[in-house]
Structures are given as C-alpha cells and as structure tokens.
C-alpha cells in the first residue's frame, strides 16, 4: 500500500514538474515572438550529432576492450577456430561499413544544417551511384556467403566412421548421456520403453544396447572426432557447448546430430585461461520451461590414454542394474499378452 502511494505521489510530482516546464517553455517562446523560421535549437541539435559520433566511437573502443576480457577463450575445436576467424573477419567488415555510414550520417547534419543563406541542392537521383552501391554490397555479400558456405558444408558433413558416438538426451530439466560401450555402437531406443529405471528408453532387445553405459559427466578424447547423437523426450532443448562453438537443437521425435573435434584438453585450457577451476560446460539454449537456465553438464576433454582408462572403469548399465533384464522380459510378456488379447 505504501509502495503504491509512493508511486502515485512520484507520478503526480513528475507530471506537475513536466507541466511547469512545458508552460514556461511555451511562455518564453511567446515572449520571444517565435518568428524565425528555425529556432536556435537547430544549431544545438546539429552539433550534437558529431559530438555523439566522437563520444560513441570512443565508447565502442573502450567498451569492446573492457568487455573482451570476459569473452570465451579460444575455440577448443577445429571448426570453432574457423568460425571464430570468419566471425572476426565479418565483424571487421561490418564494423567498417557501420563506421563509414555513421561518419557520414552524423556529420552531414552538422555541415548541412539549415541556413537562411543557402538552399538545398535539387539532387533527385544518380544512376551510377545507385548501381555502385548495389554492386559493392552484393560482391561483399557473395564472398561472405562463399566462405560461410564452405565452413557450413564442412561442419555439417557426415562424421567419419571411427568418430566417437555419444548420445545426449534432453528432458526437463537435465541432460542424460549414453556411451556405446565396447562395441562402439549405440543401441536402439524408444520413448515407450521409458520407466523409472530405464530413463532413456533403451531397447535391450538390441544387442548393441547391452554394453551401453550412462555417464554423469561428458568425456571427450582430445583430437578425435566426436559425433553427438541428440534427442529430447518432452519439449525442445538445445545442446550448446560454447567453448567448442557447437549448437544443435534436441527435438522430440526427430533425432539430430553434430560432429566436431575437440582440440584442447580441460587441463590445457586451465593453463591457458590461468583458471585452475575451469571446466567446459554444456548448456540448454532453447527455452524449455521454468528450469531452462539450470540444464548444466560438465564436459571433460582428456587425452586418449585418460579417456581409455576412464572407459575401462565404466560399468555397463545392465551391470549396474542387474535386476532390470527380468523387469524388461516381464514387461515384454505383458505387452504380448495384451496384443494377443486384442
């Protein structure tokens, strides 16, 4: 109640002050006999544009430098290096376009401000100019498209046969991770199989599934191609690995994929960033409900030896859940009876 009263009083005060200012400005205007075609404020407005130009460029320079300390460290993947380079090049190109146009846009108001002594040029068109500034952006765009297309084709090309396959499954509000086990093949799945134990709906009739294991953290071997098999079981999610420049939506009913090669181990990155607590992270970037901002997983990039050692330690899911196969068979039998009864 007091807050509301405070707001109301504030609002009334502001309106009163504005009304007063307004009245004074009007009266002063009448007293001065506002006859001139253009008031003196024209000069002030004209001068403010070049001032803003200078202040603005200083501000951009300073703020960019200040902000860059918080930018992501160098890309930790092969394609990330390429897209970062492409990003920085494009940023430079568009910044030049931005700077050039703004120099003109913010100085013309000053140089060509109203003067009683002058009349404006009657300059309705110039075909050569129009053609020039159609062709120049078109050529620049064409080259950007070309480089973008090359990078995009490489990134989206099929993964090599020996790529490490890892399944990421999004759900509200967590990620689940499945590794293929010794046979290097992920088993089939079906949402219909999901129950309290089998949270990823793995199909244990598929031999390939029997040695699969679930992990709490994501491990990538360094310098080895990884293919993420991405899916979701409730709403859209999106796999975002910012340090690797990786992003792909997780879609219920439509599995997606992303292949890339990590190049810097967690330890190396800790040294590079001078931050002993550094960890790669997985985040969700497609709004998925109230817990959207909390879908985090830690990602570890390790050497091949460490990775192999880690793999050795992992128990398959069925080893961890020895009773499940009985449940599975019972469920199947029940399904069959229902089917037969129908």
């Amino acid at each position: 109640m007091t807050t509301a009263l405070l707001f109301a009083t504030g609002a009334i005060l502001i309106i009163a002050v504005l009304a007063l200012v307004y009245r004074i400005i009007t009266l002063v205007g009448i007293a001065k006999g506002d006859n001139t075609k253009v008031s003196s404020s024209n000069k002030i407005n004209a001068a403010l544009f070049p001032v803003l130009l200078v202040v603005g460029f200083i501000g951009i320079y300073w703020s960019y430098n200040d902000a860059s300390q918080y930018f992501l460290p160098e890309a930790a993947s092969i394609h990330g290096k390429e897209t970062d380079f492409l990003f920085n090049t494009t940023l430079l190109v568009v910044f030049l376009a931005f700077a050039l146009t703004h120099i003109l846009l913010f100085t013309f108001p000053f140089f060509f401000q109203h003067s009683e002594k002058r009349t404006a040029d009657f300059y309705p068109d110039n075909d050569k100019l129009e053609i020039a500034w159609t062709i120049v952006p078109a050529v620049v765009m064409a080259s950007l498209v070309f480089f973008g297309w090359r990078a995009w084709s490489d990134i989206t090309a099929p993964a090599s046969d020996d790529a490490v396959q890892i399944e990421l499954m999004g759900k509200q509000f967590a990620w689940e991770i499945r590794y293929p086990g010794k046979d290097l093949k992920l088993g089939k799945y079906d949402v219909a199989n999901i129950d309290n134990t089998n949270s990823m709906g793995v199909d244990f009739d598929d031999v390939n599934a029997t040695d699969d294991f679930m992990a709490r953290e994501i491990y990538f071997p360094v310098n080895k191609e990884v293919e993420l098999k991405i899916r979701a079981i409730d709403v859209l999610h999106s796999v975002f690995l910012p340090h690797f420049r990786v992003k792909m939506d997780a879609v219920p009913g439509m599995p997606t994929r992303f292949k890339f090669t990590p190049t810097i181990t967690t330890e190396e990155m800790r040294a590079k960033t001078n931050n002993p607590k550094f960890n790669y992270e997985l985040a969700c970037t497609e709004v998925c409900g109230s817990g959207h901002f909390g879908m985090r997983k830690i990602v570890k990039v390790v050497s091949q030896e460490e990775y192999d050692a880690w793999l050795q330690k992992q128990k398959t899911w069925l080893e961890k859940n020895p009773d499940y196969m009985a449940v599975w068979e019972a469920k199947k039998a029940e399904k069959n009876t229902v089917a037969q009864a129908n």
Partner: protein
Amino acid sequence: MASVVLDVEHNAVGHDDHDDHHHGNFWTNYVFSYDHKVIAKQYLISGILWAIIGGGLSLLFRIQLGFPEADLEWLRPLLGDWITEGGKMDTTFYLAAVTMHGTIMVFFVLTAGLSGTFSNFLIPLQIGARDMASGFMNMLSYWLFALASVIMLASLFISTGPASGGWVIYPPLSALPQAVSGSGLGMTLWLVSMVFFIASSLLGSINYISTVINLRTVGMSFGKLPLTIWSFFITAVIGVLSFPVLFAAALLLVFDRSFGTSFYLSDIFIQGELLSNSGGSPILFQHLFWFLGHPEVYIVLLPALGLTSEVISTNSRKPIFGYKAMIGSMLGIAFLSFIVWAHHMFVSGMNPFLGTVFMLLTLIIAVPSAVKAFNYITTLFRGNIVFTPAMLFSIGLVSLFISGGVTGIILGNSALDIQLHDTYFVVAHFHLVMGSASFFGMMAGVYHWYPKMFGRMMNNALGYVHFWLTFLGAYLVFFPMHYIGIAGFPRRYYSFTNFDAFSTFTDLNTFISIAAMVTVAGQFIFVFNFFWSMFKGRLAPLNPWKSTTLEWTTPRKPGHGNWPGALPIVYRWPYDLSKPGSDKDGHGDFIPQNVPLSETTSSNTPEEEDLVQLEDGLKKLSDHREANPFI
C-alpha cells in the same frame, strides 16, 4: 489564454473545419466510427497503452537480470504470488514476462500501433481520398484488434499465468500444459487473441490495398505516390500473404492442444507419462511460424522506413534521393522477405542443404537494405536540414537500422549462427534493427503528423529531450548486449549463476537494466507531451513543415470527407523541394503536389513542360468524378 487566440489568427488561415463536425452521436463519432482518422487515433492510443505495458514487462525482467540478488518483496503488491516466499521472482513468471513483452511489442505495438495508425491516417489523406474503401471493414478491423487486446490483457491476470514459451510459442512446450503452467489457459487465450488479431490485420490490409489501388485522386499515378504510401501498400500485401500462414500454424496448434491431433507432437514422455501422439514434427511449426515471422519483421519495419523517407526529405528540404530505387528496394525486400524464413532455424535440425540456400537468400536481402540506407544518407547530403523532433527520430532510425542491420550479416551466415543462435547477440540485433528502428519510425510519424491529427503542435523542446534520451538509451541498452552475446550468454535465462562460463558481466547487466529503466521512464516525457498538447498545444498552422503532400492541403482539422470542396488534383511527384526556379514561381522552396505545372513555368523541366497540355484533361476528369461521386 490570449496567446492561443493570437495563434489562431496568425496561423490557422482559412479553416472551414467548423462545417463538417458533430453529426451523429458520441458512439458513431468516437467509438464505432467509420472515419479513417478516428480509427487511426484509436490505433495510436491503443498502441501507446500497449507500449507502456510491454515496456513495463521488460523492466520487470530487467530487474531480475540486473539485480539477481535483490529482495523483490516490494514488487509483491504488483505481482502477488509471482514473488516467492524468499522474495525472488518466480522463474515461470520471468519466462511469461519475456514472452508477453515480445508478443505485445511485435504484434500489438509495432504492427497494430504503427501500421494501423499511419496506414489508416495517411493513405486517404495522401492519395486524395475521402476515406478508406470500406469504412465498415476498417471499423471492424479496429474493434477486432480491441477484442484481441482485451483477451491478451486478460491472460496477464489468470492464476496459471500468461503464455510463457517465448513469443515464438514453439511446440511441444506451448502444446503441453504439463510442460509449463503458462501453456494452460494462458496459451489458449494467447491463441484466441491472435486469431482475432490476424482477422483484424487482414481486414485492415485488404482495405489499405484496395484503397491505394482504387481511390487515388485524379493525377495520382503510382509514380507520384509518396514513399509512405508505397511502404504501407507493400506492407499490406506482405501481411495478406503471410498472416494466414500464422493462422494455419495456430489452428493446428489448437488441434494438437485440444483435440488430440499430432501435427507437431511425437515420441513424448513427460511428467512420468507417455503421450499417445505420434508422427508429428515440431519443425513443421517452426517453418509455418517463421513463414509469417520473418515477413513480420518487414511488416514492422517498412512503414517506419516509409514515414522516415517522407520526414527526411521534407526536413532536408530536398527530394528523397533515388525515389525509384527506394520503391525498387522495398519491392525487393518484400519479395525476399518470403524466402529467408529458415535462417531462424539453422540449428533446428533441418537439412543442412536448406541452411546453405537460406544463407544465400538472407545475405541477398542485405543489398536492397543497404541501398535504402545509402539513399537516406545521400538525401541529407547538401540539404538544408531543419531538426524537428520528427527529423531527429528519422536520423535515429537510419542509425539504428544500420547498426542493427550489419549484425544481421553475421547472423545470416549459417556457420556463424551456430555459436550465436539464441544468444544475446541475437537479442541485440533484432532490438536495434526491428524494435528500436521501428519505434523511432513510429515516433517520427507521431511528431510529424501530430498537427494534422489533433490540429495542434507538440512541444519541440520536450521532443528534443525525448529524442536524445531515447537515442542514447537505445544504444546503451542494446549495444552492450552484443558483448554478452559474443561471450555466449543464452537468451531467456532467468539467471546465469549456474554456469561458470556465464557468471561474468554482472556489472554490465546491472548497467543495462538501469539504462533501460531511465529510457522507459523517459518515454513518459513523450506521453505527457502527447496528451497535454492535444488540449494545450499551440494551434497548428496548415502546413507546419512546408511539405508537398496532399494531407497539408486539408483544413487544420479535416472533417469527415477530408476536403471541404472538390478533391485536389495531383500534377507532380511529392518531392519538388528546393527545385531550381521554384521561388520565381512564388512557391519558396517547395511546390505542393496539387500545384499545376502550368503555374510553375520557371521551375519546369522540359519533360514537365510537355505534360502541361494534359492538365485540361485532368481537370475535366476531376469535374466528372465530382459530378458523379459514386461511379
């Protein structure tokens, strides 16, 4: 008040405006009016009210982002149980605020408030028509919008909260009430409201198109239309072609939500329950949504660019540079706007080959956009610039259009979009190029045409303060978001503290929030100026900006039918500003469109001299039309 009376005698010459007023009653004149000018004002005032609500919502979530640690108990009188026991903002409410801010700003403010206001107000006045082709449809259009508004507003107050899956309402999140509470009744109201909104928009657009095609006055060929009318016309065509697709998308979503179909749903296990939906595709919805969603960007932007063309030309005292190139680039943008939609979906899982195609098409659309920007700048070159508040907002628009547009070149590149998609870089991009630029266009329009709308002048000094505050504010709020986006911060995050990678930039987020609060507060200078000047403003001269277009040939407050006598005849294009020889013809530095070429012999070009002999024919045609008004 003596001063005001004085102003009447000085400025308001020849006002025949007492004749046509006050027939009919309050309801037919001000509520269910068929008059395009009244309907325009209804749209404008509704738009302003919506902008206050939409801006207010943005402050709520900016408080959360800028001051994540703060005790928000003081917001309880406003938000009630959306503030948790611990004095924090509810995470679902945060999403709802983000969603409703987007929906309100895109559709209710920048589509209805901008296009609805100025298409209605300016089309008949600038083409020399008595009113819209169908006054009834026009009235219906506004009141369907009002109905949509009431439903959308009501959804803010229900206990489960309004829609909260983002303004793009991607299913399955928007389809499943168990996924988020806002997808219950709130989403139903959202969809019902949008159905009425789409119907309203279609009625309006069809009206604009038929009016521009059929009701142009004698001599007003397409080649003599002001760029404002071109932009409204093209916008209406885009609307007619794209809004029905949103309607289809919404209808299928209604079926999925309420009637058990599976257009968008497949393989879903949620809240411990397996859903029976099978075979649908969430990607289908994204394709349908963005088939409207991307043209929608231009539905919002093109009218703003049209208004700006007019204001920049008038106040530079120069013809707009490259009139034909401007029309050509608008047509190009309109065409291309329909074939770039999937650049919103590069990482949605669609076929990568489509990504290549849409990257190419997207970067092509940068070319006509660049042409427009260059033409605006060249219009300023060697002008004689008068800085009215409208002119300042127009220059501001060009600046924001460029700074927001260039980052589109980065985002349109599918390889770069992988990292930047759904980060604050995108937020920065579209708030500058679509949000702020269109808002500035709308402000330019209000300041410029206010004298014609209300017969009084707005206060310039307050206008200048409003402009500089808003211009600086827009940059201070949205420019730093590029940095946050480059650092990878995702959109629609309630807080960033869960992640090591995103736990930086807390000071910058606080800075942005404060800048946003000051900027939003500054808009009340405008609101005050707007309503106060309606009653207390200086009486407007007939042609305060020395403009060439037809609306300034009407009485100070045009009555029903706009022109008391015969409709004006158009003899020339709308940009005869500072034409060599025009002062010898007694027209100072501008020649209105209705001045015959035969009266301006010293300023005519040789081609125009040849056209003089056609004028008798135009006059005869005009007489004929006046004698037979219903043909």
